[in-house]
């Protein structure tokens, strides 16, 4: 057609080519920006199902991770607690007598941050000095609440297999302190339960954890560990199965009835021969009886409140006493003066501890008075009811004392529990007076000099020096081996980038 002006054809051709080129560029640009979307707003690494190393989670969630490792802080002391490590046997040597014959009389420290979970269980005299995987006083079950390596190992070998064997047998597998994998799903960061004991306890009560709300989960992930528990030796042969004694309910009476019906005791007191119960940190159970739980406040609302850094709001993972974070924990809801809020807390603690201290003193007296009766030749039938009273009284004392914060979480209930404890121990002591009288003893049994930890431990016949030396050897020889084995194992883990 354009024979006379062939250059027009060239122009048309080039024009079409340029249009095609531009269209291709737009297509490329669209593809490029779509690819960007795969990486923008996506986390850096892919976290595997059983990733137990907290640093890896921290690559995707630096704010949560950086605030979490602040649980290494031990500088805060409130009037009675805080995040510092406190040797409670030094602060209150009566505890040595109350726990005579049991691990806690060897060593009991007020716990510090999650960061120290592995270190502290390695260091405590209660785990002894096992130089052999089958050695030592404590079972493997003790590891359950200490590490995200626990669900990893449980998945590998099975739940009852995890609960079998001695504590030292799994020391090389437990390397990472309590962390992200214990509470979070690695893909969606949803809260989830990783310890079977809580699930089983819910099932026995006819409740389904899948149906609880997100707000309840913010309490239940803590309730995996901050609860009363015991080891059931009868479920599986050879295993010490972690069980929560909640079948009758969560109150101190309910759990007492549960244990009494089973005829269960944690140890026999070395002075009074009473069949004793140890209460371990019933923080969740006590919290649920208090007004804050009633109003729907969860553990995380106070202990992990929201924080803002440069426009990003996130959950503060420095789990600590809310007294060290009043403006974010309390003042969000309670618009009071800082000193008023602290004063309110201290007032309740002071008043409850007044009675708690009294109960402790009475329990010490009851134990030594019972010992006196045995020494003078009392019979089983004379003593059995008295020993039950001592058992029940100390159970109530321990339930209150170990609830850590019970005087804040539920002051009325805790006061009541201590009150019933005082009643029980005094009833026992009234019976003891009669028994001692029948045996010819009418004086007051002298209160021993247990003004220091050393004196108290000597009084109950404990060789603290030997235990400490054995522990030092253990820490020098065995722990480095465990660390070495763990490092070798973790070197083989792969981390996948997103």
């Amino acid at each position: 057609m354009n024979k006379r002006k062939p250059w027009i054809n060239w122009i048309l051709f080039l024009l079409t080519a340029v249009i095609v080129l531009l269209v291709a560029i737009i297509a490329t640009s669209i593809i490029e920006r779509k690819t960007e979307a795969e990486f923008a707003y996506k986390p850096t690494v892919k976290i595997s199902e059983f990733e137990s190393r907290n640093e890896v989670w921290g690559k995707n969630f630096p704010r949560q991770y950086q605030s979490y490792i602040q649980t290494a802080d031990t500088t805060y002391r409130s009037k009675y607690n805080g995040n510092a490590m406190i040797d409670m046997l030094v602060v209150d040597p009566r505890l040595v007598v109350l726990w005579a014959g049991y691990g806690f009389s060897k060593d009991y420290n007020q716990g510090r941050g999650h960061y120290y979970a592995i270190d502290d269980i390695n260091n405590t005299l209660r785990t002894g000095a096992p130089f052999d995987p089958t050695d030592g006083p404590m079972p493997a079950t003790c590891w359950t609440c200490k590490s995200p390596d626990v669900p990893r190992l449980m998945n590998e070998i099975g739940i009852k297999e995890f609960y079998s064997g001695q504590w030292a047998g799994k020391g090389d597998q437990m390397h990472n302190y309590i962390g992200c994998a214990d509470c979070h799903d690695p893909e969606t960061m949803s809260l989830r339960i990783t310890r079977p004991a809580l699930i089983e306890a819910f099932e026995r009560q006819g409740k389904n954890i899948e149906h609880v709300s997100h707000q309840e989960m913010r309490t239940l992930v803590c309730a995996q560990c901050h609860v009363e528990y015991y080891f059931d030796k009868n479920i599986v042969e050879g295993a010490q199965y972690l069980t929560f004694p909640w079948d009758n309910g969560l109150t101190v009476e309910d759990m007492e009835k549960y244990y009494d019906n089973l005829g269960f005791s944690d140890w026999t007191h070395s002075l009074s021969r009473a069949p004793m119960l140890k209460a371990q940190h019933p923080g969740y159970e006590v919290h649920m009886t208090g007004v804050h739980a009633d109003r729907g406040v969860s553990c995380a609302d106070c202990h992990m409140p929201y924080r803002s850094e440069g426009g990003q709001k996130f959950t503060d993972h420095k789990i600590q006493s809310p007294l060290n974070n009043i403006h974010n924990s309390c003042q969000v809801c309670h618009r009071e003066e800082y000193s008023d809020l602290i004063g309110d807390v201290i007032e309740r603690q002071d008043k409850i501890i007044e009675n708690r201290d009294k109960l402790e003193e009475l329990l010490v007296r009851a134990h030594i008075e019972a010992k006196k009766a045995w020494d003078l030749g009392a019979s089983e039938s004379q003593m059995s009811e008295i020993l039950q009273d001592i058992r029940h009284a100390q159970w109530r004392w321990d339930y209150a004392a170990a609830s850590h914060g019970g005087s804040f979480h539920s002051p009325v209930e805790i006061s009541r529990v201590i009150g019933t404890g005082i009643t029980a121990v005094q009833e026992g002591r009234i019976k003891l007076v009669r028994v001692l009288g029948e045996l010819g003893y009418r004086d007051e049994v002298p209160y021993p000099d247990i003004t220091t930890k050393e004196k108290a431990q000597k009084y109950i016949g404990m060789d603290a020096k030997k235990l400490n030396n054995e522990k030092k050897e253990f820490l020098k020889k065995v722990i480095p081996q465990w660390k070495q084995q763990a490092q070798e194992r973790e070197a083989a883990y792969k981390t996948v980038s997103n």
Partner: protein
Amino acid sequence: MSKLHFLIPSENWQKPVSILLGILFGLIIYILIISNSMSYISDKPDTCINCHIMKPQLATWQHSSHRETAVCNDCHVPHDNIFNKYFFKAKDGLRHATIFTLRNEPQVIFIKEDGKAVVQDNCVRCHLRENDIVNTKIDLDDWKLNNGKLCWECHNEVPHGSVNSLSSVSFILEEESKRIPDWIEKYLEMQ
């Protein structure tokens, strides 16, 4: 007719031009597909995050009071009549697409005047009863004459928060997952 003849290539040129036109046609279909062009007719929020820089707005909306009751277009597109709706969508969409393609997006995205007018009208459209009672029913023209405040001058967190930035949210993760992991269900024989 001769004008059209001018455009038709001669014998020698027909093959290469046909091929080029074929490529052009294919590329256009390709672009229509990869750009999710059909999604722009709907009102779904996922359409707006075809451009990933809108993800902070999506995320803040998902954590806001309006999540269950209003999607993006309920506020950002006029609802006075259907022609206006699609005209505005087309105009605004083309503007967005151009900026996004040229990589010209600002680090802090603020709404433009046309958009402000639309959003203000939509606030009033749904919250008519409240606006009658408190007499805050204004439009953008009223505001320009200083005859009142736009709704979000007081309600400034609704729904996208008060921090406008491409990095104001970190990750967009999916919704809740199971509370009990599979491995526990297996061992406790709960399945």
